[in-house]
């Protein structure tokens, strides 16, 4: 097991490469979800503002 983690002496390089790949892929999968949510909320807020402006109440 410890042999597996040692990666024949290249542990630092191999595991940093895999860790970075993991982080980049997860980030690129999660960011678009959050982005879409944010845009929807922004459109909804703009809509409510417009609704208030049109009805004339502050």
């Amino acid at each position, binding site marked *: 097991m410890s042999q*597996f983690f040692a*990666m*024949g*002496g*290249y542990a630092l*390089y*191999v595991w*940093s*490469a*895999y860790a*970075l*790949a993991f982080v*980049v*892929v997860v*980030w*690129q*999968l999660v*960011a*678009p*979800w959050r*982005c*879409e949510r944010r*845009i*929807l*909320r922004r*459109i*909804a*807020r*703009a*809509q*409510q503002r417009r609704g208030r402006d049109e009805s004339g109440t502050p």
Partner: protein
Amino acid sequence: MLTRLYALASPPRFYRLADLWSRWLLWCGIALLLPGLWFSLLDSPPDYQQGESVRIMYVHVPAAWLSMFGYVCMATMAGIGLIFRSKAASAVAHSCAPAGAAFTFLALVTGSLWGKPMWGTWWIWDARLTSELVLLFLYFGYLGLKAAIEDREAAARATAVLALVGVVNIPIIHYSVEWWNTLHQGPTVTKLDKPSIHLSMLLPLLLMSFSYMALFGAMVLRRARGEILLRERNSGWVRELAMGEKA
């Protein structure tokens, strides 16, 4: 065929389908990733010269392929958007840029992490590495140009021209290892005769590549939904959707 394509390009329909496809591709990507990781970390032999460090290949080479694949997708969709004035196509083109840039960055850094123990240097200004860095700057340029132009239609046109001009870099990256002398090794898989790589290493490489590709599709389609919403923010269906979300 054309009418079906036009129907697909209708924003509300594309928005719905992109959700479905994005989920489907995400699960495909994960289903390929698990055996891919198993083979690349456990069930593949160490290289006779590079030892265990060869395992970096299974995250590095697919990332480099995807960096180019993503660019070609982006330029193609940008071109379609330019010619047919399709909002869905230019939304997809815009969505390719961040994911493509991320894979380019990943290819550069994992390459660096592989280069240090094998070549003795993190970086050299050779043709392969430099042209890949130029690719990253092309993605950045695309994203910067998109952010800098207020008018969405004008931004789509300008970025499409940039993307199409930048395509010349793709064959340069691919052939850089043949045209110039370099530390970087030549192609072993993507050449016309038989791949000069053993099946035990080719299998994890292909599994990881297809996994990256499916995940790239999931990223792009998910982001395209946001782009569609921005373009269609004043149309009825988006307003309804946004109010439903809020409630």
